[in-house]
């Protein structure tokens, strides 16, 4: 019997342009509901004008070898395959939410009434010989994915060349991720929320200069030009954009 592949990923973040193509490809591919993300791209603005820089950090499930989500799940819905991928058996999920709370990478979403959801390297695509959706679409060639046992895979070739420059995120958590990063700003790891998949406010541009993962309500900006409940038939001149 042929050996199982060992699926692994390495991201060369120096090349990333923050375009969100990976994230949207993932959402369409996996029909991910609004408010949940399997992959997200964080922004960080730092420095003082005119010496200002912007860094990006695409984040997804780390397919940890020692996965806290797996240990936290009470219904046995999570398991780690021989190929290294941590998967959710949808029928077995009881929406308990312990997995989301346990994940140091904010990579699992388990909202009330929804089945837990997380990246599984697009396993259904791997099954038919396709790459994960994020890997395929990335215009900047950030993602290097493949079978770590195959020296010719994109992953192995990248690691042979640049592996010594890579690191895992939040190594102190001791979860032994299967996803490696090259060229990311270590400070940005603080932006990845622990125990929570997505907080709406974390995508607003007001958070770009911050390294916080969570935003206390008093620091949030509330802005609503379109009043709730106003529908198109009630459209009035008042809403015409303030032209004098």
């Amino acid at each position, binding site marked *: 019997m042929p050996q199982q592949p060992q699926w692994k990923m390495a991201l060369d973040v120096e090349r990333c*342009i923050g375009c*969100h193509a990976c994230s949207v490809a993932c959402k369409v591919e996996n029909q991910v509901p*609004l408010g949940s993300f399997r992959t997200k791209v964080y922004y960080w603005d730092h420095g003082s*004008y005119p010496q200002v820089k912007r860094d990006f950090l695409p984040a997804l499930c780390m397919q940890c070898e020692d996965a806290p989500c797996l240990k936290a799940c009470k219904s046995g819905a999570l398991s780690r395959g021989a190929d290294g991928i941590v998967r959710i058996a949808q029928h077995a999920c009881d929406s308990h939410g312990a997995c989301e709370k346990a994940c140091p990478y904010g990579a699992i979403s388990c909202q009330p*009434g929804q089945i837990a959801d997380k990246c599984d390297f697009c396993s259904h695509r791997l099954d038919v010989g396709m790459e994960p959706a994020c890997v395929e679409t990335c215009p900047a060639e950030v993602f290097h994915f493949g079978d770590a046992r195959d020296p010719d895979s994109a992953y192995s070739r990248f690691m042979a060349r640049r592996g010594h420059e890579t690191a895992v995120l939040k190594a102190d958590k001791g979860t032994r991720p299967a996803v490696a990063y090259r060229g990311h700003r270590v400070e940005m790891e603080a932006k990845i929320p622990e125990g929570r998949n997505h907080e709406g406010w974390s995508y607003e541009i007001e958070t770009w200069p911050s390294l916080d993962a969570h935003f206390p309500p008093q620091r949030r900006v509330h802005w609503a*030009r379109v009043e709730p409940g106003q529908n198109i038939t009630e*459209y009035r001149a008042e809403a015409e*954009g303030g032209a004098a």
Partner: protein
Amino acid sequence: KAQPRVPHDYRKATVVRSVCLNCSTVCGIEGHVIDGKLVKVSGNPEDPNNGRSLCAKGQSGPTINDYPERLLFPLKRVGPRGSGRWQRITWDEAHDEIARRIRRAMDEGKPEEVAIHVGRSRVGEETTRFMNAVGSPSVFNHRAICSSNKRAANYVSLGETDWETGDFERSKYIIDFGANVYEAHQGAIHAAKRIIRGRFDNGAKFVYFDVRMSNTAGRADEWFAPNPGSDGAIALAMGNAIIAAGLHNREWLDTWSNVAADDLAKWIDRYTPEWAEGVSGIPAADIRRVALEFAHAAPAAVAFTNRGSGAHYNGFNADRAVILLNAIVGSIGQPGGYCYTVEPTRIPPQVFPHPLPMPPSPKAKSAIENPPEWPLANKWQRMKVGQIVYRHLLQGKGKVQVYLSYTLASPQTWPEGRSLALRVLKDEKLIPFHACSDIVYSEMAHHADMILPDASYMERWGFDTRNNMELRDYVTLRQPMVAPPGECRSFVDSLIDIARRIGPDTAKYFEFKDHEEWIRRRCEPFGKRVGEDGFAYMRKHGVWQDTSKPKYYALYDWPLSAEELKNTRVDEATQIVLRKAADGREAPVGLMVKGTARRGFITPSRKFSVYHPDIEAAAQARGFDEDGGKGMPDWFPVPSIERMGQEQLHLVTFKWNVHTQGRTQSQKYLSEIVHHNPMWIHPATAARHGIRTGDMVEITTYRPHGHGMRGGGEVVGKALVPAWVTEGIHPRVLAVSNTLGNQFHGRAATAHNGPRQALEAAWDRAAVGEDADLDERVWWDPARGGTGAGYNVNAILPIQPAPLVGMQGWFDTVCSIRRA
């Protein structure tokens, strides 16, 4: 208990190749269709530009087709215009009424009062054929609010094309003036991908000029924030520094430029880096250093532009100055340099000929379509001055009886959009009849008299092309991946049907069943080239690339063949090769260079045009003396900026990487990422006004000064927007994105969570069902503590067409602010 989601089973999928149209970049795509539903798109691996890559917008495409707020039936308004009350009608009724109204205008001898107004439709050949059949020149477009200064600059300098193709992958030094290429440049993904390869795989340095820290600025090797409107001064000063250091390519200039090296040195002598520092605020030492680094890397060095440099009063010359910078170091057409191809924006008619008979060009004239105030707007191609359409209608400079709008969102995307444009759109005297073709119930549709539900770009036909980064001719095919829902019908199919109903004089040009048959007939002769059925070839591959010629490096230096030299002579004075046609008239076909006949540049001198006589003539004719009427790429100040008060600021706009201006806000996964557009403001400026992040700010804008401008200094309007204090912006500049602030387009676009509202007449649950995401999970809805759908600032940006070419000076707006 929640229903498990079923992963896409790609073993059951059929793959249809086509072309994206969720922005202007023209990416080849593959649609994966399972059980009649388009579940996913990915890049067409055969596409020479993007291959398997797509951006976020491209990936979002499938969500358009089954958006619950899609228009599904033709509608006719039953209340006053803009009341939002509609009645379903049949396609026969819709087309009959449009045809009858067009016939009446034609019979009155006023075909020019039939107008079609399009955004980026990509069916320009079809709409033009229709309008030619009607006899109307009134095809209004959006080029002047997009890119006409840049295109004009390329036409002037190179003659051959309106769009350069930087050979970024092989470059060693890339200077970008105001093209936010990592997010929103035309051809963004194609160029960004290669700039990244150039930088990280080929060791290129990337230097970027922009007033705002875009993603491009934030990731460039060096980012400079010049004073708005000073890009051209910087480029000229770089040229000055290079020539002063003797690093210019004298031989190239003396051979190929219509201003030889010594003459150029004399002229550029006045534009020193120290002078440019005063204009731009960028230190002379940096200008000189970057210039010399660029020259040392040449010819694998490219400087290019887009909106940031071009969308100014002086943008035409700014872009010419940047092209000149490439000529000074001899990188035009060189590997790693400033390359270009034969006119890349047209479907080659010799390969895909139009079905005959073709209607003749119209004899009727329109002062809106061809306004004499801007003599260079339609000189090289019909770029027009789209932003003046509504103002001219209001001023009575032109009339319309029938107004057809397509892929247009002028209330959102036009300067003075939600103010002047909307005022005219609402006025039944100025626009007696408006039929709008659209995908969702838009602001444009809301102000129409009839709505024609369109097929999405994944449900219709068309050819598309643009510049190919691989420097070859290529053409792509847009074809339906799935059938449109409800009674949706592509706009071109509507036009064909309407043309048949107007009368035999128009019907004779539309002797084909539908758009598909039109495309098929254009592919028939093409079949001979590929040795198989041409239509089948295009449907299978989605793209055709002409590999029969070498890549278009140094096209000007290509020798003329013996065939091309037949019946030619050389003009002794100019060394231009002239060919005599059958009617005895002579036309230039090349240039003698060191004893051999070369193609040269397609300019009057057959050389790279630094000076251009047509510009000098046009400037003199219009009394436009800012550039001295010299026809050189001079720099002159933007009058509105020159007169700015100490406390006044620049107001600029920008495009997000996940949105186009008007079309994408209804796409839930894109609006989930960006739905909120506060005003960017520098900390020092904010502190002076007591403004903190989240504070509401009142912006007041003023009318422009300058040639052909009226009411300079008067108030245009006021807006109330929240502030975002950021280090990533020039201290004198405020930035508000040009997208967002939709009041229509459904729940994703307007940040409304809950059940689908109103317009039930347009919808059919059987054709397009509800989306639980929009009913339950629009988390940016203000009612759920979200930040809402943003603000549309275009309402208060004045219409300000630049002299001669007429491009909108998007970045010349002067404003003042106060904390509200």
